């Protein structure tokens, strides 16, 4: 059986403890990187990480992105969404299609 991990600053992630997720606090990008590596090699299927920390560890996340597990999902921190999660979705589209489909869909919608 696999576990679900949450990485983030204390205020943002403390509530997830009540859901039975494995919560690790990280105040800095380096600490978060260490935790991600630890969790990735352990039996974690999903790792939620707050957007500011995800932002600092883009290269590591990009590497893990190619493996089937774990899924690393950025979530908004307590200070609100930075839009990183959405940008990642768009990045996937750009990778697959070659162009940013959603942007072009909006501009061509009124044609």
């Amino acid at each position, binding site marked *: 059986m696999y576990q679900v991990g949450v990485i983030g600053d204390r205020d943002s992630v403390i509530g997830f*403890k009540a*859901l*039975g997720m494995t919560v690790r606090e990280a105040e800095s990008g380096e600490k978060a990187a260490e935790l991600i590596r630890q969790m990735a090699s352990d039996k974690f*299927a*999903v790792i939620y990480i707050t957007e500011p920390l995800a932002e600092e560890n883009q290269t590591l996340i990009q590497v893990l992105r190619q493996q089937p*597990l774990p899924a690393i*999902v950025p*979530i908004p921190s307590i200070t609100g969404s930075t839009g990183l999660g959405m940008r990642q979705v768009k990045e*996937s589209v750009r*990778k697959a299609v070659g162009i940013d489909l959603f942007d072009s869909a909006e501009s061509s919608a009124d044609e």
Partner: protein
Amino acid sequence: MARRQINPNRMELLRLKKQLVTARRGHKLLKDKRDELMRQFLDKIKVNQQLRLRVEKLLAAANREMILARAVMQPAVLETALLTGRESLTLGIDSQNIMSVHVPLFDATFESSGMSENLPYGLATVGGELDQAISALMEAFPVMIELAEVEKTAQLLADEIEKTRRRVNSLEYILIPELMENIRSITMKMDENERGNLTRLMKVKDMIVEQAIQEARRRDQAAAAQEPAGV
């Protein structure tokens, strides 16, 4: 643009022709794979976008509740309330095969039942605000798991599509033209050799005929010279 030296012989030509057929078939297959992956991907990415919007909204709401809870409660009380054990959450993993891309399927279960209703702390010391925050998170939770699954799937598909597209392009724009170019140059070289051979044969034949004519002439002359002497 033949980049490497190729031997213009029949064996090489046959080999290249076979390679070209394989390359064409591979190109067609990969193109079909890319199209199907793309179709699957577009389905997923739409869901992904919607789920992400929902999760962000739900978490923002949960965070607001949490801020409220922290404001009215002693930090230490809150800590202990959340620290005391909740049975740990585990995920069942299944995997699905989409066009030979293995994507995970998550199935969340709690080791002991009774996830709903039961809050993981005593109600005596804890205010209602925390209940609100936790229930908001619980509401967000299934969506979050779904998001993780869909987002991972979309990412894996995107990577695979990118790879496949590169392969299709390199076959279409590099390997196949190069093979065709090589085949053409071999055929031309062989035609040229054939023509050279033909003219050489014609030349040789001319020379043989010439020799024969001169031989005949010499014999005639010799005969003509001998005749008057004999008569």
